[in-house]
């Protein structure tokens, strides 16, 4: 009897249940944070709570809209996205990112815009509409070049990154654009890239050179922008997509070797990369200078321990730029290793569901698009978390859905929306 009931719950029902649990967790976290704030001063600011209200109202509306449009995709995927999104909001709320309230729209707007982007993504790819996007491959390519070009011409440097006016960092959008292009290009040459000899991929030179030439332009632009993190991420996505289309582990092996070689080469050329490499090898060589940020991050984690200091009860402000690249250190301090394990599990589930959805799509293009978008999120997460824990050198990449940063959140939710749409097979 009960089993039957479970079956009738349906994807939307499950997603709603998961969202309610997530919202409950977020509410507990909020209360804890408010409790710590209140124990210091009897003041309650309402405006910083607005993004949380937007979350509490906006997500159910999206779920309702999905229900009405007859969506039958992967509930775990949607649940993971909104749980992570909620945790991100609560951490940003705790770090005071919304403390200026409506006076600083740059902090308040990303969430509603992101939720809208999520719907746009779902609309674009849902119900098999994704196949149509293959025609937009070249447009996406040119748009990506345009964005990178604009940043080269108009951007100004700030803390090692490049930003447009209003601290806008549109390079985030380059990721889905180039994934779209790659999916369309690679799926058109699927046969060529699938050719292997004894496990070693041997695509015809004409097609290979075409890809190399097309790929070199954005890569050179990212080098000119000194955005090595973006470059690393895009290349990782390319490798995963090549692997996905050829289904030959040869691409993975070649790719890993290429990444290691490129990483080593880059630190020989770029002084900035070299510093990051040295800090990674031995942060204690210059603990108060170059090693300061990563060591403070590790100290924050240590003081969090297994169960964490409790939300609002830690002192993660001691880590420089903790709200964006190093947000994971704040998370680790306040929710502990146990909380981090749960969070990483949710990320892993999200990627796993993305790839399952890819396997279930109808056309090679959609499959590649789905794999590429998932790989982009996965690589970003792995590079960020590994960087903050000193498992790998820092790459200056944000943590999807949790780091502070408008364009990052909007783009990630757009990608999440596209995955949500792709997981729905008519």
């Amino acid at each position, binding site marked *: 009897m009960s089993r039957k009931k479970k079956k009738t719950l349906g994807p939307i029902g499950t997603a709603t249940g998961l969202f309610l649990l997530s919202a409950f*967790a977020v509410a507990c976290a909020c209360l804890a944070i408010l409790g710590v704030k209140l124990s210091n001063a009897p003041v309650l600011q309402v405006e910083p709570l607005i993004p949380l209200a937007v979350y509490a109202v906006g997500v159910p509306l999206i779920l309702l809209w999905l229900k009405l449009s007859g969506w039958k995709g992967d509930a775990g995927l949607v649940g993971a996205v909104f749980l992570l999104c909620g945790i991100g909001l609560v951490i940003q709320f705790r770090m005071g990112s919304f403390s200026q309230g409506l006076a600083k729209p740059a902090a308040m707007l990303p969430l509603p815009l992101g939720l809208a982007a999520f719907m746009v993504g779902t609309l674009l790819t849902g119900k098999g509409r994704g196949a149509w996007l293959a025609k937009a491959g070249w447009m996406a390519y040119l748009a990506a070049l345009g964005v990178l070009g604009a940043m080269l011409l108009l951007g100004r440097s700030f803390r090692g990154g490049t930003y447009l006016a209003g601290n806008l960092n549109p390079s985030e959008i380059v990721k889905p654009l180039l994934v779209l292009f790659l999916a369309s290009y690679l799926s058109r040459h699927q046969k060529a890239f699938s050719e292997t000899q004894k496990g070693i991929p041997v695509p015809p030179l004409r097609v290979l050179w075409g890809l190399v030439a097309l790929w070199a332009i954005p890569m050179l632009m990212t080098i000119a922008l000194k955005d090595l993190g973006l470059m690393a991420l895009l290349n990782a996505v390319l490798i995963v997509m090549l692997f996905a289309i050829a289904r030959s582990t040869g691409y993975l092996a070649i790719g890993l070797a290429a990444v290691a070689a490129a990483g080593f080469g880059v630190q020989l050329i770029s002084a900035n990369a070299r510093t990051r490499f040295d800090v990674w090898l031995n942060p204690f060589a210059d603990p108060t200078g170059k090693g300061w940020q990563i060591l403070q991050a590790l100290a924050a984690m240590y003081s969090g321990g297994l169960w964490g200091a409790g939300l609002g009860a830690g002192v993660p402000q001691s880590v420089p730029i903790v709200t964006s690249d190093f947000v994971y250190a704040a998370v680790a301090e306040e929710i502990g290793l146990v909380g981090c394990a749960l969070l990483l*599990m949710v990320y892993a589930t999200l990627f796993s569901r993305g790839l399952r959805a890819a396997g279930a799509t109808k056309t090679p293009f959609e499959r590649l698009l789905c794999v590429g978008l998932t790989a982009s999120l996965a690589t970003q997460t792995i590079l960020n978390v590994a960087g903050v824990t000193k498992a790998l050198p820092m790459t200056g990449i944000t943590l999807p859905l949790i780091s502070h940063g408008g364009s990052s959140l909007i783009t990630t939710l757009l990608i999440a929306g596209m995955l949500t749409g792709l997981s729905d097979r008519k």
Partner: protein
Amino acid sequence: MLERLMNLLNSDVGPDLLRALKIVFLAVLAVASFGILYAPTVKPGKVTSYGLLRILFAGALFAVLVYQATWQIWGYTNPDFVKFMRRYNRRPDAAEKQVMRGPLLDRRGMVLAAPVVGDVWGRRYPLGAAAAHPLGYYHSTYGITAVERVCDPTLSGYAIDKRDEALGKMLFTQRAAEGEAVTLTLDQRLQQKAYELLAGRKGAVVVMRPRSGALLALVSSPGFDPLNPAEAIRDEENTPAFNRAVQGRYPPGSTFKILLAALAIEKGLPQVYACPGQGYVAGPGTPPIRDSEYYAYQRKGAVWPGWGRIGLKDATVHSSNVYFAQLGVASGTKAFNDMMTKARIREPLTYLRASGGELKSARGHVPEVTKARSTALLAIGQGELLTTPLHVACFTAAVAADGRMMRPRLCQAEPIEEMSRLCNVKTAEQLRAILREAVSRGTGKGVDLPGLNVCGKTGTAQAPGGEDHAWFTCFAPQRKPNIVVTVLVERGGFGAKAALPVARALLQEADRLGYVRIAEEATP
């Protein structure tokens, strides 16, 4: 309303409320996460479901999490990291700043190092320079060294002892317990006495228990003030910060003959050799090896007639180079090399294994011999041969402990371990009798204290660029030895003259304290 809430939160229940919220949050987060993990998924595709990629992504995240745990949970095991947090952690109630560092105690519970109330970096060392080398220093600028360093997790209260509740305490609250005391095997009185006896000369003293490996004194001279190591670190002429007892490498001279004698007895080698006054030439092109008497006679304008045909006992008593050079050649390369391995000459000796790592001596040096004649020079403790005072003390202790070479140890809590078997019980017994005679009627006469039955061997090691290094290594009493004393005086000249009086005074002191005639407390 808000103020009433604030008062509530600041009252006794406040922390409990917040803790409850934290637990509920983690619990709900766990339920939600597992809900997401087990939520029904789309039907797998016909082409593929990318199992490899899914494992790759999840595996990478898991690997990062494990690495994260090495900082988040086990960060205290990294002394550099703990040091960083002590100095730069801005968290006001950070545990690593509050813990009162535990004291270092000697075997009787006397204080060797104690904390200073109200000063995180404060430390009090009652013995001062006398024990600065084994204990090390704990300094905000110059860092943490020696015992202070490898026992740091325990002293700082970060060590997790899996056997007691500290593990649970640590995991659940992340508040470190009080810093714990560490009890060393040293005896503060012997340490002080040995340091005084060296009287500022460059040298080292090792006093140990032969059957348990417990170090009663580990002295290096000149000493330095552990509260102000700066000067000692910069002094490159006298290198007072250098621990000569474990890091100093010296040719062992005639003390090395103990190993050759053990080899000869154990292998049943021919034990009678002619020892002509002119010396012994091992092979074409090698200079003759002579006894010291040859030069003594030469200075008087006389000619040394030699010892004639003598056995192992007389040769050891007279410390005859001519004899041992021949014995070395007779032993053959394999037996010689085996002996070097058994005596652990080439290895660093671990003399402290603690929560934060190990303390090791320097390696000794002895070439792997391939020609029998090259053993001639090595057999008399010269040539390409270097040992630390700790190495010499350890092989002396092995003879005292019936051939069992015990790992030296500095901490009472360390288990007693056998490093290797130098020789069998019978050999050790015979060798002790020979070494007894070397004291009663030989070069070590000066140390023959009545009633103690001291056995020992002097050593005078030639070293380039100055006077000889003076050695004396001994144990007592002969039948069931309870104490080993090894003394090295750099550039001290004749072993019996410079090193022996130090050993004699130390043995007297040790006897007064009950270490010689009363049996060793713990034996395996």
